[in-house]
Structure formats: structure tokens, C-alpha cells
């Protein structure tokens, strides 16, 4: 016979994902009330934008077991696509954002079909090469992209009469997108598709023998992650009203990968943690900001050496195994 208490615990257990999302949502709605410093809000907004990219990238790296050192390129396609679409071509911001995401999907398909036949170092090099190509275009094609000095005057997003033109408005805008992305990714990994991807990451032969179309699954996740990166790029462009190539070079791609690794391969919740930590780190250790790349490299090497599944996942797995073994010892 279940007591009310048991029922309550069971309800919480059953809906743990939804309830955690809800709790996070409540905190985020209240956040601008507690934190009114625009600089700090700007940081948490940047975390949201990066988190959208890193969520997709974690599906690709942590779940499908692939590697990409080129996701800043898709981030750039979103940002510059929205900039060019709204300023140069004079299109409306929201439809342009969607059109650009579609273009990013097509580019991901075109890049992914040949590149995803590769794996390991070769795939890393191919995606890195793609990022360098895109970066070079941003720098060299002044007439369209504004070249090294960047692209200014990108309009703010609006919904009806609401203009997203200050940090508090940005907060609700970008975190809504981030939460939707989080929810979609959480749903995906809890489904048969997610289990297929996890299987693929560990053993392609076994996954295929179980009915996973491995090649197709890899390309699909790559496209999904490109679309998320593109949407994040569009938000980035509209919030900052200015973009320049430096936000999209290969070191940004490497930082995205570090965020995935810190948060934990295949941990959707860890993604938020990893993104926040790596975004905030230069703020906390201000003196070391000029050594950012060295520190990030060091973090990456240490984690891969000692907790190859990533910081959060590694610790959680160790604890979970310990608990299971203790309970049944």
C-alpha cells in the first residue's frame, strides 16, 4: 500500500526531468529581479547563447561519439546570415533567422555527407578546415561581411511592440531559446533515437546490428547541432547589434568542445554547467585573462587524462557505481 508520501516521491521521480526544467525556469524568470547589474546579466545571456550551441554539440560529441572543431563556423553562419539578411537585404528578422537556420542545415548536410565518413583525428581536421574556410571568408570578403572590422547596425529583435533592446529583455529572449533547446535535447536523449546515438558512440558495429542506421544518424545529429548553432548565432547578432570575425575563429570552436568536455560527454545538464564555467572563468581569474587559451588547454588535457567522460559525468558515474556496489555488497 502506497502512502501519500510514497506517491509524492514516485511522482517526483517519474517527472524528475520536467520538474528540474520547471525549477530552473522559475529561477530564470526571477533572475533579473535579483540581479540588476547589466554586466552580470550580459554574462548570463552569453551563457544562454553559448549553451544553445553546446547543447547541439554535446549531442554530436557526447551522444553520437563524433568530434567537431568547426561549430563556430555554424555560429558564424547564423550571426552573419541574420546580419546580412536584415541589414543588407532588409528582410524581417524572425523569418531571416529561420531561413538562415535552413541554410546552415543545408551546409551541414553538404559538409557532413563526405566529412562524416571520416572519424577521429580526420573528422577533427575536416571540421577544423571548414571553420578556417568560413573564417577566411568573413575576413576577406569585406564587401559583404565588413571584413576584419566587423558588421555593425544589426537591428534588435521585436515581438509586436516589445523591442529586445536591453539586457533584461535579452535575458528573457535568449533564456527562452536556451530552455526550449534544453527541453528538446532532453527529450531526444530520453527517446529511442537518443539510445541509438548513445549506442553509436560506444560501438558502431553493435549499434548497426541493433538496427541503428549509423551513417544517417550521424549526419542528422550534425545537422541538428548546426541548426542550433545557427539560431544561437542569430540571437548573438541581434543582441550585440555588431559581429566581427574574432567571435567565430577556431579557438571559439575549441572552447565549445571544452565546454562539452567540462560538462560531460553525453550529459545534457552538464552542458549548462560546462558552458557557464568556461564563460565565467576569465571573469573570476581576471589576471589570467591573457592566458585564457593556455588555461583552457590545460583544463581540457587534465579532464581527458583523469575523467575522460567529462567532469560532471565522470564524477556522477563514479558516485553512482559506488552506490550501486555498496548497496549490493
Amino acid at each position, binding site marked *: 500500500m502506497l502512502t501519500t508520501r510514497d506517491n509524492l516521491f514516485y511522482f517526483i521521480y517519474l517527472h524528475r526531468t520536467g520538474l528540474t526544467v520547471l525549477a530552473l525556469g522559475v529561477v530564470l524568470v526571477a533572475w533579473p529581479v535579483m540581479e540588476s547589474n547589466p554586466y552580470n546579466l550580459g554574462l548570463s545571456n552569453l551563457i544562454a547563447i553559448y549553451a544553445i550551441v553546446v547543447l547541439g554539440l554535446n549531442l554530436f560529441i557526447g551522444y553520437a561519439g563524433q568530434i567537431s572543431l568547426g561549430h563556430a563556423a555554424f555560429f558564424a553562419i547564423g550571426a552573419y546570415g541574420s546580419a546580412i539578411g536584415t541589414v543588407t537585404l532588409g528582410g524581417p528578422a524572425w523569418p531571416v533567422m529561420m531561413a538562415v537556420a535552413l541554410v546552415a542545415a543545408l551546409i551541414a548536410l553538404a559538409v557532413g555527407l563526405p566529412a562524416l565518413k571520416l572519424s577521429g583525428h580526420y573528422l577533427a581536421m575536416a571540421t577544423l578546415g571548414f571553420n578556417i574556410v568560413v573564417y577566411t571568408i568573413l575576413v576577406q570578403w569585406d564587401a559583404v561581411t565588413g571584413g576584419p572590422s566587423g558588421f555593425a547596425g544589426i537591428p534588435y529583435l521585436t515581438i509586436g511592440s516589445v523591442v529586445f533592446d536591453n539586457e533584461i529583455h535579452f535575458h528573457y529572449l535568449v533564456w527562452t531559446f536556451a530552455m526550449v533547446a534544453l527541453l528538446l535535447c532532453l527529450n*531526444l536523449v530520453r527517446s529511442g533515437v537518443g539510445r541509438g546515438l548513445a*549506442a553509436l558512440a560506444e560501438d558502431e558495429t553493435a549499434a548497426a546490428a541493433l538496427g541503428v542506421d549509423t551513417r544517417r544518424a550521424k549526419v542528422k545529429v550534425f545537422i*541538428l547541432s548546426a541548426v542550433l548553432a545557427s539560431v544561437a548565432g542569430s540571437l548573438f547578432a541581434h543582441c550585440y547589434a555588431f559581429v566581427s570575425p574574432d567571435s567565430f575563429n577556431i579557438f571559439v570552436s575549441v572552447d565549445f568542445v571544452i565546454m562539452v568536455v567540462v560538462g560531460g560527454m553525453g550529459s545534457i545538464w552538464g552542458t549548462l554547467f560546462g558552458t557557464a564555467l568556461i564563460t565565467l572563468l576569465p571573469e573570476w581569474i581576471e589576471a589570467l585573462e591573457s592566458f585564457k587559451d593556455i588555461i583552457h588547454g590545460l583544463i581540457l588535457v587534465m579532464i581527458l587524462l583523469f575523467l575522460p567522460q567529462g567532469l560532471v559525468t565522470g564524477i556522477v558515474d563514479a558516485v553512482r557505481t559506488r552506490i550501486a556496489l555498496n548497496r549490493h555488497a
Partner: protein
Amino acid sequence: MLELRNVSKWFGGLPALQDVSFRIAPGQVTALIGPNGAGKSTLINCISGVDRVQAGSVLLARRPVEALPAFKIAALGVARTFQNLKLFSRLTVLDNVLTGLTVAAERSFAVSMMRLPALRHQERQLRLRALKALDDFGLAKKAHWPASSLSYGEKKRVEMARAFVSDPRLVLLDEPVAGLNTEETAQIARHIRRQRSAGHTMLLVEHDMELVMEVADQVVVLDSGRCIASGKPEAVRSNPLVLEAYLGRMEATA
């Protein structure tokens, strides 16, 4: 159910399988035996689409499948286990068994990301099936354990649960008792007998002759990639060719 017609395969210039032909009738357990390097695992890999045959054909319910990729053969109802365990160590035991239901699960990314009530319902059904399979193999208590924390014998049973959970037409078991002790072997033998009485068709690659004689309806003997004998276990056991090629050699080494 399954018919092999003159299946051949070479690794470089080395013949791994030469003109192998036999049939598996529905509901029967066929044991594939032979000395090390006879081509048994290669044959299982060819049937499941992990390897390609280079000549001959593999017919599943009269349909040629030798050119299909592994995931399509899985979708046609062929499940398998691996000689060297291929469990997903990062997933829980239950999720491992659920991967055995990939073919029955929703495949669309968009639908999965929306997680509408219909999908929740389907997921619940799949979980029940997976839990049932785990229970059948005596592992229900460990459903939420990480797969990496199980013993070798338990992992072997999880792999079998994963293979049987989808009610496949044909199950390929690649050395299910290799490395197990007598007690665990007896346990696996019980499971195989139970699955046979439930009507499952199996192809069993095995070195353990006692197990083979106990559970097989038909025995096929491979030696150096050739099929040298096939038939009832008793008949094969007394076949002089087999005694010379396989059992004789075993006695010599024993």
C-alpha cells in the same frame, strides 16, 4: 527461415568461407561448430550484415539479404550477440536492453524531440517489454545499474536479453558461454532451452560440445571455411569426417 547458398568469403587471398550451404528451419536451434579459425564468427558476421559475403546468397524467409547493410537486416528481425561482449558500458542495464528495441522505437528526430503523449506511451510499452526480458534472464533487480558494474556472466545474459527482447525471427548467438563457469553455463543452457520452447529460431556458435549436444536440433560443422557435415547431433557426433577434423583434434589437445 534462413538459407545459405554457396556462401564464400575471402580475407585478402585467404578463403574464410567456401561454398557454405545449409538451412535453418523455423523454431529450431542450429549449432555451428568447428575448430578455431573455421569461419564460424565470419559466417555470423555475414548473416547479420556486419561482413559482406563475396559469393553466394543469404536468404531470410526466401528474401536475399546478403547485400543489405546490418541495420536493415536487424530491421528484418535478425538479432545477435557478440563473442566479445558489446554492451554499452555507459548506459544502464535497462537502457542496454532498450537498444534491442531500436527497430520498434520511434525513429524521427522531430517526433522524439517533441515527446508528445503518443511517444510517452510507446516509450512506456518499450520499457515494460525490456523489463520483462530482463526478468526472463533473471536481471530485473539490476535494471538501473550501470552495465559496466555487472559481472561477466551477467553481462552475457544482458546481451541475450537485448537480443531476445524484440522477439526476433532469428537470433544469432556467438559463443554465449565462452569464459563462463559450469554453473553459469548451465544457466545459459536453461535460457536457451526456454527460448526454444517459446518458439525462437537460433543459430548458435559454440565450442562447448556438451551444450551443443544438449540444446541443438541440428549441427553444422565447419572446418577451414568448408561445411564438412550437418545433421542431427548424434549423427554428426559419429560422423568420421567430423571426428577426424574436430573431435579428433580436440582429443589430441585435451
